[in-house]
């Protein structure tokens, strides 16, 4: 049950989920997710709030721990090390090491408010990869230029609009040169007129061949840029396929009723 036509085997997948479950105490949030994301693919996750989209995204990044099933990123098991038939929980430092390769963009931006835009972008390369300041600054300037904010380098987040903050947040994630980018409703907290700028940056990133998993309510973006789309509801994948097919010709009743409300 793969969500994409590009890969037939799991071996080459960037992300592979096998019956992934997640519970918070008594709340069973993910109830067996199976999906595959191919390299260079833009993979969109849609669904009503509380359907588990964001939780699944956070599992990929170890921000939440999977309760059952297996989740692989680039062929490596998430959160655990397997030796024989035993699983060993990863140490914090090992988790941190894996997170370096996965960029994440949050709904609420989560820029560091006490640092300027460029300092936000330089922080992780300098602190985590111990890059010299000049190298980090040069890359940060290039990234700011790429997201169209070269003139805002020395502005603090509070001096930037929501759309500008989110673009800085994307640049910050890209500074670690990740192989996978996770977007958790990146435009949901923005004024409608600011959404376009952020989507433009994401479209540009998709064209450059970045593997992206995008939790979104922007159906236009999903249709235009997405290579694969999954509709989730109540912790399960209800329907998956190419965005054009799912969005224009949904098969399941639940998908139909959801799309009729958001389109």
């Amino acid at each position, binding site marked *: 049950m793969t969500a994409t036509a590009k890969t037939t085997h799991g071996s080459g997948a960037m992300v592979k989920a096998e019956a992934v479950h997640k519970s918070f105490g008594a709340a069973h949030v993910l109830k067996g997710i199976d999906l595959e994301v191919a390299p260079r693919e833009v993979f969109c996750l849609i669904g009503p709030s509380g359907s588990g989209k964001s939780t699944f995204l956070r599992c990929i*990044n170890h*921000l939440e721990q999977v309760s059952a099933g297996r989740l692989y990123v680039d062929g490596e098991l998430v959160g655990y090390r397997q030796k024989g038939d035993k699983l060993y929980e990863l140490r*914090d*430092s090992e988790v*941190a*090491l894996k*997170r*370096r390769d*996965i*960029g*994440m963009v*949050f709904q*609420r931006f*989560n*820029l*560091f*408010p*006490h*640092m*300027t835009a460029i300092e936000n972008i330089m*922080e*992780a390369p300098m*602190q*985590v990869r111990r890059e010299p300041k000049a190298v980090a600054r040069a890359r940060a300037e290039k990234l700011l230029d790429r997201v169209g904010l070269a003139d805002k380098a020395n502005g*603090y*987040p*509070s*001096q930037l609009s929501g759309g500008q903050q989110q673009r800085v*947040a994307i640049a*910050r*994630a890209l500074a*670690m040169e990740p192989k996978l980018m996770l977007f958790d409703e990146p435009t949901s907290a923005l004024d409608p007129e600011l959404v376009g700028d952020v989507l433009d940056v994401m479209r540009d990133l998709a064209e450059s061949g970045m593997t992206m998993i995008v939790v979104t309510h922007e159906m236009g973006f999903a249709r235009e840029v997405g290579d694969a789309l999954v509709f989730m509801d109540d912790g399960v994948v209800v329907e998956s396929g190419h965005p054009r097919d799912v969005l224009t010709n949904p098969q399941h009743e639940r998908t139909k009723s959801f799309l009729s409300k958001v389109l």
Partner: protein
Amino acid sequence: MSVDITKSDGPSDAPPPGRAGSAGPAGPEAIKAIPVRHYGRYVSAVVALALLGTIIYAFSQGKINWGAVPDYFFDDRILTGVGQTMLLTVLSMAIGVVGGIVLAVMRLSKNPVMSSIAWSYIWFFRGTPVLVQLMVWFNLGLVFEYINLGPIYKDYWASFMTPFLTALLGLGLNEAAYMAEICRAGLLSVDEGQTEASHALGMSHAKTLRRVVIPQAMRVIVPPTGNEVINMLKTTSLVATVQFYELLRYAQDIGQTSGAPVEMLFLAAAWYLLMTSVLSVGQYYLERHYARGSLRTLPQTPLQRVRANLFSLGRPKGGAA
């Protein structure tokens, strides 16, 4: 459409929309209104000044030799005492702040051993009077006769535990318990999204704390810490009980030999007031530093404000001439 301009409320420089045309290129005419008279303020000011005058008069007529205060204000012993008080305040607060941050991080740690240790420490040091703690440190020689750190150091406890060290440990370790709670409040005030964003970038727990959480927590930590510093400065007066000589102790000594004991207390009070005033200014600048990024424009420093006022005073003069 004419407007009756005797109302006193409303922003004085907001342009009334209907009159914009008649005002010409200079913009809409500003409202000239008679302000509300606050007669109560004049009355209360007079009453307060009268009371203050009465009190000052009463003190000046009392059997107090005021001349002794300026005579001894810059006495060598007093200045030494001021220095000792400052030194003790700074060092004990340093122990308190560092200890407080460590304890707060321990208390919030997922490690149950760490959080239990921190909890117990805070419970004990906050739950007993600092004066009692000082005296216990002073008398700890009853429990430990020697201090023996193997080949590094070995001595009698009594000669190791100087009055200064007793005072420093007594005040510093007690302060750490209070600072721990202040720091904990600060750490908890930082949005969880900040930690998540930092972790998502691959930063470790320690780096996240040091680079992301603590700098933001400082905004919440600094104001109550300023309070603690001022409190500490005054609490140092307790260490006379463990034979450490600081401002109050020197002042009392002078008072006994010079026959002006009460006068010397006033002198000490004046010095304490002077020092706490200086500290308040320092706190202002520290708060301004940590407001970086959270305010769109930083508040002016007192110096900048004075300069700005001077300029604005100069301007109308130039216009009149």
